[in-house]
């Protein structure tokens, strides 16, 4: 995803973080230019492409990064650090919208009228059906699935983003895949 952005920024990242720590305003602009699209996309998927919510969360994420740059010790990559902030902001967003969160855990009966999944995921109808299924998964399941399969992050980095041990992340991934598989099978049989 976002091919224009190189994946390995390590030396540039160190320099950027040092500039952020020293309070250089241009450093914020640079951080923003490099990571905005990726963070926006990640957040947008987690809030069902609600542009307003995504904008607020991304804004809060970069502001929090700006305020806590002094505490960043460089033990993780900058984008892993930003993802971890963004993920916490998404969780905060859902906490604030508890009613919506309740809606998320509603059973699949609510969309039993959806068409069965076809052989490929090419059609828009199929994609929408899968998106709906994904939206019924708990937020922490969706987050790890996104990081693992869409962002292609290794488990060691997912651990840093979600603040869990490797064993815990592996377990979470297994449960998330099982849950998704079960829901897909139910949908396909329906």
């Amino acid at each position: 995803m976002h091919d224009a952005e190189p994946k390995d920024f390590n030396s540039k990242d160190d320099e950027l973080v040092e500039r952020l720590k020293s309070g250089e305003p241009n450093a914020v602009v640079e951080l923003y230019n490099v990571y905005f699209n990726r963070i926006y996309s990640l957040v947008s998927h987690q809030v069902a492409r609600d542009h307003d919510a995504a904008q607020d969360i991304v804004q809060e994420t970069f502001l929090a990064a700006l305020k806590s740059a002094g505490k960043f010790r460089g033990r993780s990559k900058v984008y892993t650090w930003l993802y971890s902030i963004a993920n916490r902001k998404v969780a905060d967003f859902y906490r604030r919208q508890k009613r919506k969160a309740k809606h998320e855990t509603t059973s699949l009966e609510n969309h039993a009228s959806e068409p069965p999944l076809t052989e490929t995921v090419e059609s828009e109808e199929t994609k929408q059906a899968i998106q709906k299924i994904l939206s019924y998964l708990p937020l922490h399941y969706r987050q790890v699935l996104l990081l693992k399969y869409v962002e292609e992050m290794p488990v060691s980095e997912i651990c840093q983003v979600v603040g869990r041990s490797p064993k815990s992340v592996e377990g979470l991934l297994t449960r998330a895949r099982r849950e998704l598989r079960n829901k897909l099978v139910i949908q396909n049989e329906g």
Partner: protein
Amino acid sequence: MINFDSEKDIGRLLKAVYEPVVPPPEVKGEVLEYLTLEASRASLRASRPLWERPNLLVPILVAVISGLIGYGSWLSLNLVPTLLP
């Protein structure tokens, strides 16, 4: 055919569903403007003299006054009795 047991297929399916979302240009501009403003405010706050930063000045004053009171008490207990006839 999608194999729901295959990790590879699940990954392929998620990638197809979660295609990169491109932010609207106006969103990019608005967020950048906000952040630049906040960054310059933060650097302005950091460069203000001490007496204009109550969150730093107050603890420093409290520490200095406490130190003076403590020193005064120590003096009255240890030094003053030796000066008395």
